[in-house]
């Protein structure tokens, strides 16, 4: 250790070289500076470093000014964008047209459906029974009844039941109206007894005639 320290102390030339290689900003130690002042090799090294400090980079002058780069899209990119836009527009127009055509086929000309054929006779208003002197006045109703009401008051006069499966011509109006409600299920007609009912000799008591009540105004 002591020998190494002594060797380093004895070799100021090497120490000065190390100082030059590591640090030339601070001042060198005095003994090294004294050595360098008389050592030709060290002065050559100092001079070599001074050659660098003698360079003036500003003498190179201004570099050519590059224009501010502007992003220019290549032509192919522009054409691809135009083609993509056209394809997208055509697709939108095609889908829209197809949907319009589809919607018009649903709303357009009326098609007679089998449901209408089956329920054609049942959707209309019930046929008006023939006027009878014993018939009681029915309460007025604005809503037309879609179900046939079997008349129990006159069992002898029985309307023939509608035959399901064959379109029955409506008595008043044609049933090809869109107001037919296919969800209304008709009640099955009252089964007609096959055997004729004997007519009693005694007159049938008439039911009391309901007195129409006056509607209170206001």
């Amino acid at each position, binding site marked *: 250790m002591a020998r190494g320290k002594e060797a380093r102390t004895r070799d100021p030339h090497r120490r000065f070289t190390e100082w030059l290689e590591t640090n030339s900003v601070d001042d060198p130690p005095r003994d090294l500076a004294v050595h360098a*002042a008389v050592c030709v090799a060290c002065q050559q090294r100092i001079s070599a470093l001074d050659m660098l400090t003698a360079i003036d980079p500003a003498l190179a002058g201004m570099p050519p*000014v590059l224009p501010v780069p502007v992003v220019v899209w290549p032509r192919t990119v522009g054409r691809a964008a135009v083609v993509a836009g056209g394809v997208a527009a055509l697709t939108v127009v095609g889908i829209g047209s197809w949907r319009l055509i589809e919607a018009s086929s649903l709303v357009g000309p009326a098609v007679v459906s089998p449901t209408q054929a089956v329920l054609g006779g049942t959707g209309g208003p019930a046929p008006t029974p023939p006027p009878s002197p014993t018939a009681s006045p029915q309460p007025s109703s604005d809503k037309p009844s879609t179900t046939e009401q079997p008349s129990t008051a006159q069992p002898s006069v029985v309307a023939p039941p509608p035959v399901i499966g064959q379109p029955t011509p409506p008595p008043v109006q044609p049933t090809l109206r869109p107001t037919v409600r296919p969800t209304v299920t008709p009640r099955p007609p009252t089964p007609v007894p096959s055997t004729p009912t004997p007519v009693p000799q005694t007159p049938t008591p008439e039911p009391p005639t309901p007195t129409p009540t006056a509607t209170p105004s206001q």
Partner: protein
Amino acid sequence: MSNDLTETDLLRAAFRDLHGARLHGFALLVAEGDRTRAAHAASTALAAGARRAVELRHPERAAAWLRRRALTELKRTRASPHVTPVERHAALVGIGAAEPAIAALAELTQVRRAALVAGLVERFALTDVATILGTDLVGAQRALSGARREYLTATSQWMQNLPSAAIPGGALAERVDQVASRAVGPRRIDA
């Protein structure tokens, strides 16, 4: 809006004026006198820096950032095939480089050359050298020491051939002489 544009343009122009010439010289030294390559690297870095002139307010940080950008550009490009050694030499002599320095710089790698130019020619601080080289402080110190060592080794043969009278003096030589004079002076007085 127009005032803002004018102010920005002025700032960019000032940025170019402040950094352009020295940055060009740095690139010229690192590119070993290749004017075309140096001009391209310096212009590219300067254009990039001018766009960020508002952020690069600090002159030394901006200078280090510009040199790093220029060094990156120099690493990316190859030497121009049409530049002759005479043209390279003339370009370096034009900014004050002596013959031994030119020869020694040519023996260094590009990164070592950049470290030496930044640390000794332009006297950047170690932190800025680290910024330029893209390393930490230890790496910058190591690169700088290695560059100095290689440079001194390369110049030794050239310097030995020079006569003593032809050895130029410089700032470092004056400093060493001053320290030596302070050290010897009291001895002389004592003697």
